[in-house]
């Protein structure tokens, strides 16, 4: 009985911790992040690396089988303006503005900011890679 109560108490604490961690993490994630380099990846293969602020306004079509994603580059920003996937979540995500990448699950596409051309976006990883 006592043991069960202890378990329940820790379950409450864990649930509270998850909630707070989620709230704090979301706030951090919402902070705008902008570097000058954007990478477009599929299955961890780099398709494009774009120096975004120096790029002319244009569209970029990325095919995937019968499906596609139309990327729009405008005023140094990037978004998916059109997609052939069934849910169109990537379009609804709008312009890439924070460290949260734009993801299109059906077309296996990831669009994110990176700090350098090798796609290493964290100082820690740089150091580890030597």
């Amino acid at each position, binding site marked *: 009985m006592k043991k069960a109560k202890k378990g329940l108490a820790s379950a*409450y604490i864990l*649930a509270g911790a*998850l*909630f707070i961690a*989620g709230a704090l993490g*979301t706030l951090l994630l919402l902070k705008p992040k902008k570097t000058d380099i954007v990478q477009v990846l599929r299955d961890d293969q780099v398709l494009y690396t774009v120096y975004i602020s120096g790029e002319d306004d244009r569209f970029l079509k990325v095919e995937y089988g019968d499906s596609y994603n139309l990327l729009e580059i405008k005023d140094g920003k990037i978004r998916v303006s059109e997609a052939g996937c069934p849910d169109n979540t990537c379009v609804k995500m709008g312009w890439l503005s924070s460290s949260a990448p734009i*993801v299109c*699950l059906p077309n296996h596409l990831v669009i994110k900011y990176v700090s350098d051309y090798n796609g290493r976006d964290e100082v820690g990883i740089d150091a580890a890679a030597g």
Partner: protein
Amino acid sequence: MNEKIRRITELALMTAIALIIFVLELQIPNLSPVAGIKLGLANIITVYAVYRYKWGEAALILFARVLLGAFFSSNPSALLYSLSGGLFCLSGMLLLKKIIPENRLWLCSVFGAVLHNMGQLTAASLIMRTAAVWFYLPPLLLSGCIAGALTGLAAQLVLQRTKKFK
């Protein structure tokens, strides 16, 4: 009445209810641009089943609903994500059931929802071979806690009222 037939009918009924809830929820436009943030109303039946039926029966209801649901949604590629989410959610809740009593069912559902989201992210990061999707963990944790508590509360109310039909 034959006990076995009664049981099968009841499980089939629960599966049908879960499927209807799932299909209805598909009609609700997604409020958030982040994939995966949703109420997960069909989870009401999953949590309910975990507490009312044997583990195998709860698993049958969940996986029948997920498989059938994939036919009804226009997005069959989502099946792998749903399966993985369902597996995480169900196994977690079955274990937590030993710690969390029936009258705190909503708490179990919170963990179920969070585990469901983690299962989906795991599937996504494996399929797309990238860790980038884990950036979505924080908002999914937050929404999972809220949605899980609400669906769990609904299941708890249903469980209390159906207890007399044994």
